[in-house]
């Protein structure tokens, strides 16, 4: 099995706000990310596809095709957008790195027909990133309920 990774970048703005929370709760939970005017990041996305090289081409999949899929599905949808308001797939969700990575997985998984999507890694900053592995493996047996409802702090 060979794992092939392609990287792209997109820039977008977002804000964290849960309408079910009071203004004070939103500020406490989300900190400066709750600024109503939003703020932005240069996101870096690494998409990893697993597969076996085709004996005729030596390729897991056609990189040009992967580039076009990423352009169409991700760049055109998210680059230079306000994620809360302009990306319908994120409607009703807080556009955290976790949720954006899961949306990206759902967008890409059905489009990748040669090899299988193995991992979506999304960097919000060089020091913060999320890996999404889809539903293929159950790693959530120890999943916990929210444990910090009354705690302060910001991300």
């Amino acid at each position, binding site marked *: 099995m060979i794992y092939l990774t392609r990287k792209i970048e997109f820039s977008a703005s977002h804000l*964290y706000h*849960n309408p*079910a*929370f009071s203004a004070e709760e939103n500020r406490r*939970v*989300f*900190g400066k990310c709750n600024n109503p005017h939003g703020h932005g990041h240069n996101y870096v996305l690494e998409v990893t596809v697993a597969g076996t090289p085709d004996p005729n081409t030596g390729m897991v999949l056609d990189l040009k095709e992967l580039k076009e899929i990423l352009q169409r599905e991700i760049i055109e949808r998210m680059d230079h957008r306000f994620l809360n308001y302009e990306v319908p797939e994120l409607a009703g*969700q*807080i*556009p*955290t*790195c*976790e*949720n954006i*990575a*899961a949306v990206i*997985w759902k967008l890409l998984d059905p489009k990748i027909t040669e090899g299988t999507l193995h991992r979506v890694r999304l960097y919000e900053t*060089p*020091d*913060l*990133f*999320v*890996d*999404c*592995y*889809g*539903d*293929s*493996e*159950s*790693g*959530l047996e*120890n*999943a*916990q*309920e*929210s*444990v*910090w409802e009354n*705690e*302060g*702090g*910001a*991300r």
Partner: protein
Amino acid sequence: MKIHLSRRYSFAASHRLHNPRLSAEQNQRLYGKCNNPYGHGHNYVVEVTVSGRVDPATGMVAHLGKLDEFVAREVLETFDHKNLNEEIATFRERVPTTENLCIEIYNRLRDFPGARLERVRLEETSLNTFEYSGERQGSR
């Protein structure tokens, strides 16, 4: 959706690789310049990966403020600007290689209450990296 969240931190510390059960010559042969009796230091980068359910109310696996506080208390405040051999109890009996430091950091972070610790990845330099995911089955 299986989601892992990773966060990078850094600290600076000194160490000396020396095994008191070996002769001076054996230590020198095994550890080379890392056996310099005065020690030497690194800017370590520690990458902490946690997993769990994404809380629908917040969209988060773990609250970063809580994770930052926990890592600061358990790791950064303990190791930053310290001599690992002289000031960290576990390294009085164990050579403070980056392998052993990675395991020590994992053990200190294992009980993070906000999410499940998946992996600690420790960079000693930009060329040397170590990872530890504990001994349990099924970890990645």
